[in-house]
């Protein structure tokens, strides 16, 4: 009983925090089902009219397609490059190991905005036009440090011994990676792919700066916002939110519940 009383303020604070964290999300989702012109009280509905309108919006659907494309491809490149870098660095004694590690992590220190402006100025100087490809490259830049860090952190001494064991038993470089290291790394690879896909899916400023006609979903939503608050933005936002939640939930569950099994 005493315990419960002691715990009460904690529970209260926790609930308050959850309210703070989820209040805007709740309002967003609720008013996406609004039966009316404005996403404000009073709530009428539920109605799916704004979802219908959203799906009829060709520019929005196209941007959805672009977003998925950029997220999937950039994350694929990021995860593979990050894994290879982490493996190469963990496996071999490198003279410049510390320097390489610093270089690969450096983009984390620089705001997306500045990375975007840098790429924009570079494109401009070389007379290259903005494109979805540029957006994808930008997303690889910002996500590579995270993927590298996630995979690299898994390379403990134990995994190095496992790598040695595979080679010792006659495995080539390729079989060591494909039959032993990558399967063991599967949770980390999946997590870094999902995380990178989420961040790319959500990313606004680089997509905004580097794309011209082929814009991504966050850019479209931002443009819609300029026109004022409408439940259509809520519908699009709810969709973005739901997909990111799913991606993050997958990586969070994989990361947190994967108790590393030792051999």
């Amino acid at each position, binding site marked *: 009983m005493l315990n419960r009383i002691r715990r009460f303020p904690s529970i209260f604070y926790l609930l308050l925090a959850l309210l703070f964290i989820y209040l805007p999300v709740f309002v967003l989702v609720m008013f996406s089902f609004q039966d009316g012109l404005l996403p404000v009280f009073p709530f009428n509905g539920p109605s799916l009219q704004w979802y219908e309108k959203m799906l009829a919006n060709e520019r929005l659907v196209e941007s959805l397609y672009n977003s998925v494309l950029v997220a999937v491809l950039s994350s694929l490149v990021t995860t593979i490059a990050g894994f290879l870098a982490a493996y190469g660095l963990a496996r071999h004694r490198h003279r410049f190991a510390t320097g390489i590690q610093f270089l690969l992590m450096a983009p984390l220190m620089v705001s997306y905005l500045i990375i975007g402006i840098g790429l924009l100025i570079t494109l401009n100087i070389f007379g290259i036009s903005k494109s979805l490809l540029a957006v994808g490259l930008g997303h690889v830049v910002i996500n590579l440090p995270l993927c590298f860090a996630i995979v690299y952190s898994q390379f403990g*001494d*134990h995994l190095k*011994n*496992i790598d*040695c*064991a*595979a*080679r*010792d*038993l*006659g*495995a*080539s470089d390729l*079989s060591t990676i494909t*039959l*032993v290291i990558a*399967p*063991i790394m*599967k949770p980390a690879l999946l997590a870094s792919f999902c995380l990178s896909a989420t961040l790319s899916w959500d990313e606004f400023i680089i997509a905004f700066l580097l794309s011209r006609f082929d814009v991504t979903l966050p850019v479209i939503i931002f443009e819609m916002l300029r026109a004022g608050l409408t439940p259509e933005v809520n519908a699009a936002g709810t969709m973005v939110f739901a997909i990111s939640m799913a991606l993050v939930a997958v990586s969070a569950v994989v990361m947190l519940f994967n108790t590393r*099994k*030792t*051999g």
Partner: protein
Amino acid sequence: MKDPILELDNITRKFGRFTAVDKVSLNMDPGEFLVLLGPSGSGKTTILSMIGGFTMPTTGVIRIHGEDMTAVPPAGRPTATVFQDYALFPHMRVIENVAFGLKMRKFGKRERHGKARESLELVGLGDFSDRRVDQLSGGQRQRVALARAIAVEPAVLLLDEPLGALDLKIRQQMQQELVRLQKRLGATFVHVTHDQEEAMSIADNIALVNSGKIEDYGPPERVYLRPATLFAARFMGENNTFEGLVTAMDDSGISVHSEIGECTLPRCVSTHSTARTGEKVHLSLRPEQVRLGDGNQRNLMDLGQARVEEVIFQGTHRLCRVVCRGEKEVRILLRLHPDEKVQVGDTIPIHAKRDDAVLLVR
């Protein structure tokens, strides 16, 4: 004489300025069980890792079956390693772990699983093929790692402190199993450990490693009873070592003026040493070689009267710390039979056999 299966020819390994292994040479006969014994950081694991191909020697040559293997990667060597943490593949079942080396050697599935089962039978895990690695106990993992290594029929099997993580009981059991397995397979084992009791109970030969050098090499009994160096004398079990000075040498023996008095050792004792008159040396005497009673006979050395300072009953014997008063106080460790009842404060006469004392020049 048989051709050596493994030859280390003057190998050195440096890490930056630090010399981990310093000009080590070693030959192994087929079917030998060699233990690399030494304190942590002595370089024994680096030697093993160079034999396995995971570390390149900075200089020197490694030959297996007479072939130069110095630059051959692990995959190309007829060696297999049992790692300290076993390094089992966590995503594979036991049988797949054991069959992995055969798969890499392009054996068909049926054949490699057959051979893998045989290996598992050998280590007593015939029924465990379909288990996942995380369902095994430490001892079982150790056996799987062993089975995986012997499945590829290596010319030399390398074991890197494989028993270090096990409980004492299982460790002792595994030591005997290792020896039995090795004799049965007729295989050549190189085993690294820091545990001198383990080394003595399993080795055909012990190579005692310290600071990157081999201090002593030979059968356990020889290394224990007739250590070659001061380090060897002190590292292998408990020992008494006394400082001394060589005063005279002739055909009948070597006279040493030591902390425990004047003594003359038979010449043969120091055949492997190169003592010279006037040289500072050490004498070593095992605690069990120090006995109660006066040493007036010709082949004994009298160590005089000693006061008992501490007695520890250890079941099979009594360990006593005594102090002798000669020129200065000398502490001596004795191992007495439980029947020999001594008490703290007693003054007892002690002696030792002349032949038991070892003269240590280094």
